[in-house]
Every structure is written in structure tokens, then in C-alpha cells.
């Protein structure tokens, strides 16, 4: 299935096996789950949340700018 990851306003398509979770998505993108929060639409979702085809998942980075 194909989902979309949104990072700093940029969207990228990611193909994942059916039944994948947010954690699988982050793994595929090579993102440490400790460095982001994830949201679907307006809702914050957990790493363990299952994904559906067509999902748009926003990665909110937590690293401070200084």
C-alpha cells in the first residue's frame, strides 16, 4: 500500500506492506521515532497506530532550533 509522509511541508510517497504501522513508516524513512511526533490530519497518533492506504502522515520534528 502507498502512504504519504509530510516533512517540513514536503510530501513523499512511501510503499509499505499492508498492515504496516507508523513505526514501520519511520523505519523505512530512516527516522528515529524519538526525533519526531506523528500526526494524521489534526490528530497526534502513536507509533503503534496502523496505517491505511492513502494515509497522509505528518512528521513534526522535535529538535530545537536554538
Amino acid at each position: 500500500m502507498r502512504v504519504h509522509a509530510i516533512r517540513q511541508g514536503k510530501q513523499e510517497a512511501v510503499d509499505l506492506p499492508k498492515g504496516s504501522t507508523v513505526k514501520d513508516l519511520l523505519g523505512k524513512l530512516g527516522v528515529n521515532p524519538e526525533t519526531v511526533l506523528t500526526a494524521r490530519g489534526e490528530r497526534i497518533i502513536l507509533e503503534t497506530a496502523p496505517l491505511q492506504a492513502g494515509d497522509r502522515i505528518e512528521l513534526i520534528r522535535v529538535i530545537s532550533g536554538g
Partner: protein
Amino acid sequence: MASKRSAIRRAARPPAGAAVPRNQDAPSPCACGKPAIYVRRHEGRAYCRSCFCESLEAKVRKTILKHRLVEKGDRIAVGLSGGKDSSSLLFLLHRFFAKRPDISLVAISVDEGIAGYRSQTLEKAKALCRQLGVEHQIVSFRQGLGKTLDHRLRDAKDSCTYCGVGRRYLLNQAAREAKASKLAVGHNLDDEAQSVLMNFFRGDLLRAGRMGTLAADAAQGGQGFVPRIKPLRFIPERELTLYAVLKGIPYSDAECHYIRGLRPLVRDFLYDLENRYPGTRYAVVESFDKLKPALRALPRQPLRACSRCGEPSSQEVCKACELWPGKRARNRTVPARRSRDSGQVKKQQRTR
């Protein structure tokens, strides 16, 4: 063994085509029964939206009470960069103390003059102060130190040192001029753990011993130093981001393009460790706190007035005068009398 476990998992999976139950792999809900939005891994506890916010607020409140960071009659200057940490800090202090008639807040932002970065964060800082009705002052490198950071770095390498020294200098000066009794800064658990490790890696134990962690350390107050407090010292930055998002606090997540050197390496290393071993950052900071009494017992330079600018320093000439030679020599009368006509502190608004 492993194959047996995966067989169990396979068996538990619904037949192909069936709707995937939402909570299949989800951890247990919040203790209150509502669905969880955050798992504090080192605690092994899941939190719903409102329980998470309450828990974060309770932790910050506990830090403030336990270490007596805020006392009766305090006027607290809050170093406000417009990033998530200092914005959440101002939001929280306002939430805790806005109704206290004896306690007042003033936000101070430093404009280093970093093109394309600071303007974004300053806009957020202004928006938050407007929203809360908190007095806001902006001091700039250009006026206070003679050059913007962009300009100074044309002939310098270690950007973060120039920036950090200049910013600390101006924040302290502005806080003192605003008659603040405390200077609150947004350092979080990640910042603190990084600083501890960096000081170890550099062999700079004495500096670690001086590391102003909580108000108790600011026995350095007096001599023109406004005691610095770090109410967010035990809150991971991931939780501060979540809090800011959930509360709709305006903040900018722009990253300074000058960041290089040791800190980003240590930061990534700690994130990696934290992911594998939840609780690592707490362990680093706790270890340091246990060590601190021993570090304090080591001899150190007493504070005196910088011979050029009069600001507090452990050397004859302070670090800010050394790194920013174009800086105006002022404040010779620190802290007894200060002229306010330098134009350095721009009043932004005064709504309270």
C-alpha cells in the same frame, strides 16, 4: 522460539480482507480510560491528551517548588527565542503565576541578526506575548555588541560560541535592566544531557560544575548576574513539542543554519541511545547532579567586574569583550546605576 511467537501473532491476525481492528497493536489506553496519544517509554505509561498536559504541568510545577525557583515577589525575565522550549516555558509560567499579584513576567528576545532564521522565530515570540499579554523586549546583537552574528562570522569559525556568549551577555544585561530578580531559560532535558556530555568530552569539568542548572547554583547572583532558572530541565524536548502542539502555542521550528561542531553529534548520539535505552537522558543528568557537590568543592575563579565593560566575569576581560571587540564599552557602573538611553533595549509593548 521466535518462530513460535510469530506463529501466534500470525494466528491472531484477522483474515485477509477483514477490517483491521484499530487497537490491534496499540498499548493500553490512558489510566483514565481515554485513548492514548503519548507513551512515556521509560515509565511504561500511556497518556491521553489531557492527562499528558496535566502531567507535564505537574512536573514543571514540582521542579519549581522543590528547588524554590520562584519566590514571593519575583519579577521573572523569560528568555524567549520563539522556539518551542522557551515559548512553552513562557506559556507555563504565565499559567502558573499570572494570577499572583506579587509576581510579574517580562519576555526578552535576542535578535542575533541571523538572516532567514531569527525573523521567523521573533514573529512567533511577538505573537505569543500578544496572546498572553506579557511585556516583551527585544535586544539586538547589532546594537548591543556592535555587529550582527552574520557579520561577525565573516571572520570567525566557532559560530555557536560567539552566539552563545553574546546571547547570554545580552540576556543577563537586559534582565537586570528590566529589574528582574530571576532569568528563566528554556533549557530542556535534552539540552542538559547534551551539555553534560559535551563538558566531559572536552575535559571541562570545572565549567560543568558552574553549569547554572537551578537557582541554587546562581549563588553567582549578585555581582551583576541575574540568577538563572531552568524550570524545564527535566522535560524531554519531544514532550515540549507535543505540549506546544496540543496547546496551540505559537512557535517556530526553524533551525539555525550555523549549528555545527560537537553539539549535533552528541545530540544524534543521545537520540540513538534514548531510542534503544529509554531513560538515558535522565540517567546522564542525574549522574551529573550526584557529582555536582564534588565539582563545587573544586577551587574556581571568583567573579569580578570586567575591566572593559563592568559586566560580571571570572577573567579580567569578559568573554563577550574578548569575542565581540566592537562592543560598546558601557555599564561601567554595573550594577549600581545604568543609563537607559543607549537605545539598546527597545520597548515592544507593555500590555500588562
